[in-house]
């Protein structure tokens, strides 16, 4: 998963490290670099804009280097490597706002940083990248904790565009919750697509989950209302409401979704899209959030996405957490999105 991004981040990490490590000359008093002086390893570059208050002065650098035996990383040291990192992230389809946030975070973490002689440059760089990525990825969404701390039944409405694997995702979540000990009922709210009711019916039967269905072409609001009623009367923990895929610019379908929301009063509206759609998924999620609202996002087909752009950017760009990622065809191929694990995967040694 995200193999291409991992490879590129490894390269970016190497470039950042080597630009900090670069052999440079001891600065002279005028700040232009000491002509005639011997190059010294691991010393600080000198060309720091003097008017920038955040930048350490030459005296500071010398003091730190000679007395405290530490080095300070300057903006210039990392400028080129950060520009390359920026392009790397954009090429991986990481949305511009998320890219900007990562670059700003890494710059802030590194510039002015005191590095003790002998301290690994790589650990400095990895630390900065890790904290930047964690910042952008957000905290994820612990669905189990949410269910445990909210009145039952917890009603979850799944929305999204066509063909992204929404119905399969509903089944996977049902399986996951059942294994975690929760009782589940599925509402077959996709009454529009031919075969959708059958499809979710087969999933439910295979998983041993109760399903509420109406005939094809029926009112999805009525199906999902009945599902909630069933859950209330049978003390079911979670209602999973499937809906027909739709594009955000189809106003009649979006108003139907709005009606569903009013009728079933979901506790959570979850937007489902495919990771392979990259930045398109981020844009669509944002549009859905504006039109109908979204509390969390699920990305499917992450196993086929080597770039990882959507997964990295979606939480930061639309401000809603990524809840699960789908990673394959079987019911177990879904995992709660855990930012720390993803970052370890991306920055861990290959």
């Amino acid at each position, binding site marked *: 998963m995200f193999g*291409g991004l991992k490879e590129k981040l490894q390269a970016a990490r190497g470039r950042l490290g080597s630009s900090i490590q670069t052999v440079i000359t001891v600065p002279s008093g005028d700040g232009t670099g000491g002509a005639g002086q011997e190059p010294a390893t691991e010393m600080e570059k000198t060309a720091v804009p003097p008017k920038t208050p955040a930048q350490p002065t030459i005296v500071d650098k010398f003091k730190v280097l000679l007395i405290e035996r530490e080095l300070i990383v300057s903006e210039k040291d990392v400028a080129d490597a950060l520009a390359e990192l920026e*392009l790397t*992230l*954009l*090429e*991986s*389809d*990481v*949305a*511009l706002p998320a*890219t900007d946030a990562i670059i700003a975070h890494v710059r802030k973490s590194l510039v002015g940083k005191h590095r003790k002689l002998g301290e690994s440059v790589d650990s400095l760089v990895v630390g900065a990248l890790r904290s930047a990525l964690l910042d952008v990825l957000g905290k994820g969404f612990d669905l189990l904790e949410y269910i445990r701390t909210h009145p039952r039944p917890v009603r979850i409405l799944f929305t999204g565009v066509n*063909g992204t694997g929404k119905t*399969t995702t509903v089944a996977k979540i049902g399986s996951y919750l059942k294994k975690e000990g929760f009782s589940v009922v599925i509402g077959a709210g996709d009454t529009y697509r031919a*075969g959708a009711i*059958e*499809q979710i*019916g*087969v999933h439910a*039967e295979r998983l041993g989950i109760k399903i509420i269905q109406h005939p094809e072409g029926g009112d999805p609001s009525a199906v999902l209302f009945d599902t909630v009623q069933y859950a209330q009367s049978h003390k079911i923990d979670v209602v999973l409401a499937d809906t027909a895929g739709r594009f955000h610019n189809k106003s009649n379908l979006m108003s139907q979704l709005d009606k569903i929301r009013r009728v079933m009063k979901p506790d959570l509206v979850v937007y489902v899209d495919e990771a*392979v759609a*990259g*930045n398109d998924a981020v844009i669509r999620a944002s549009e859905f959030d504006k039109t109908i609202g979204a509390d969390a996002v699920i990305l499917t087909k992450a*196993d*086929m996405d*080597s*770039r990882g*752009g959507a997964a990295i*950017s979606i939480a930061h760009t639309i401000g809603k957490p990524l809840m699960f990622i789908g990673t394959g*065809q079987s019911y177990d191929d879904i995992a709660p999105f855990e930012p720390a694990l993803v970052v370890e995967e991306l920055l861990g040694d290959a």
Partner: protein
Amino acid sequence: MAETMQPMDQRELMTLQHYLKEYGQQAEIFISQLEMLENGRMEAHAAIEALEGMMATEDGVVLLQIGAGASVRAKILEPDKVMLAIGAEVVVERKNKDAVEFLKERIMEMEASQKKVTETLNRLRSQMNEIEKRLEAGYQQSVAAVQE
């Protein structure tokens, strides 16, 4: 083998048909993804050919297709400067050579993705074959039962 097989009831046959249908729908999605990847790959190859061709022409004159099979002669003012969509809806200016390198990398990425999608599709097809075999056996049993 046929003798040891338990006869299938109608319900089981219907479930298998549903599975087959569902796998078929999934396979269609993967086939359309493969087509998209292939189109992207061919497009990138064509762009590389055009970029390299532009650098090779002496007068910088090319045929510019304007749709519906119509083309006009156009002069490329700066064949070494290419506006390139690198991802995330960001367009950057690159040198011709760098743009070609970028596109070659993209082709490699797309080929890797094609490989993964093809593997998944093959797995699905093999599952579909299994289901088809079981369905066929089930039908044969049903026919035999009716004839008896």
